[in-house]
């Protein structure tokens, strides 16, 4: 009994440690920025220089600028990339992310719009200039489901949670959760590092 309590305590502590420092949260409803946005301070940098850094960042990383979602003091870009292999997550996962960067002198405020697609049947996904996703040969694929009914657990190996008929939610795939959190946190870390560097 003592051993079980100790193991549960250890798991709880480990989860808390992993959650610390994460800009994103991942639960049964999805993955999202914990405070809806992240602010990066760049003291002493003029508005124009901040803008130039954002534009060169998008160019260097080969992301796609989204003029339709951009405007005065706002630059948006899109990234569409495979974020987990089927062999690791149970299904190939593709992330379509649109980042909105509001900027001014010495500051950038980042917001994110996230969509994850699951390609369980090996569909090769493509994206067009309107940010819409399809599969080559129309092979089945779908929006990623963070939670599935418990009786569908085997059919959706990539789902992080299952829920019972009584509504009880259980975690079944912590690996996918940690993979997604790591994947999204890297975007923020990368931007923080890039924008803060003296170029």
């Amino acid at each position, binding site marked *: 009994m003592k051993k079980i309590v100790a193991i549960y305590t250890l798991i709880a502590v480990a989860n808390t440690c992993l959650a610390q420092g994460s800009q994103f949260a991942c639960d049964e409803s999805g993955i999202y920025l914990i405070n809806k946005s992240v602010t990066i301070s760049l003291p002493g940098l003029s508005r124009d220089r901040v803008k130039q850094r954002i534009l060169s960042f998008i160019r260097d990383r080969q992301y796609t600028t989204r*003029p*339709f979602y951009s*405007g005065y003091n706002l630059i948006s870009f899109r990234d569409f990339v495979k974020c987990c292999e089927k062999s690791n997550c149970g299904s190939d996962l593709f992330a379509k992310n649109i980042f909105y960067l509001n900027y001014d002198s010495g500051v950038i405020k980042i917001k994110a719009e996230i969509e994850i697609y699951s390609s*369980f*049947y090996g*569909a090769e996904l*493509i994206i*067009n*200039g*309107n940010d*819409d*996703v*399809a*599969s080559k040969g*129309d*092979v*089945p*694929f*779908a*929006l990623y489901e963070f939670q599935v009914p418990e*009786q*569908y657990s*085997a*059919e*959706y190996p990539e789902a992080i949670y299952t829920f019972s008929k009584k509504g009880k939610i259980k975690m079944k795939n912590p690996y996918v959760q940690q993979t997604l959190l790591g994947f999204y946190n890297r975007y923020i870390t990368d931007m923080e590092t890039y924008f803060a560097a003296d170029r």
Partner: protein
Amino acid sequence: MNIIIRSAVIVFCIVAFPALPEAQTLASKNTRAQARYNKEKLFADSQRKLFTVTSWAGAAIGDLLASWGNYTGKSELPNGMTVYTFESRYSGSGGRYTPGYIVTDQSGNVVAQKAAKDNTYSYDFTEYYEFYTDKSQRILHVKTGTR
């Protein structure tokens, strides 16, 4: 003779019953797997339709107009964009109304009755496509939907 038949039934039950839950699980498992496949196939097909139309993003509006013909609406936005709208209206009705009846005897007692059945339906919606263009007449964004 009865004893032989009873014994045969008991033996059959002992042998067959353990296999039954396994077969049921397998059947429902296959159904669930098929359900996932069907659901995702429908999604892939609907995404393809959307993808085909919205792939005009990035093209010149002139090319779209040459292919699609005249637009049904055009408006200028304060941010300098121009929106070209194409609309198609769909309306109609169908189904059948079958009246019900009540049969009573001379004393007014109900001896037979049937409720009316109304399977009629009607629809009226407009499908729209909006093409947002910048000052260089390039399509930046496509919105589709119904209203």
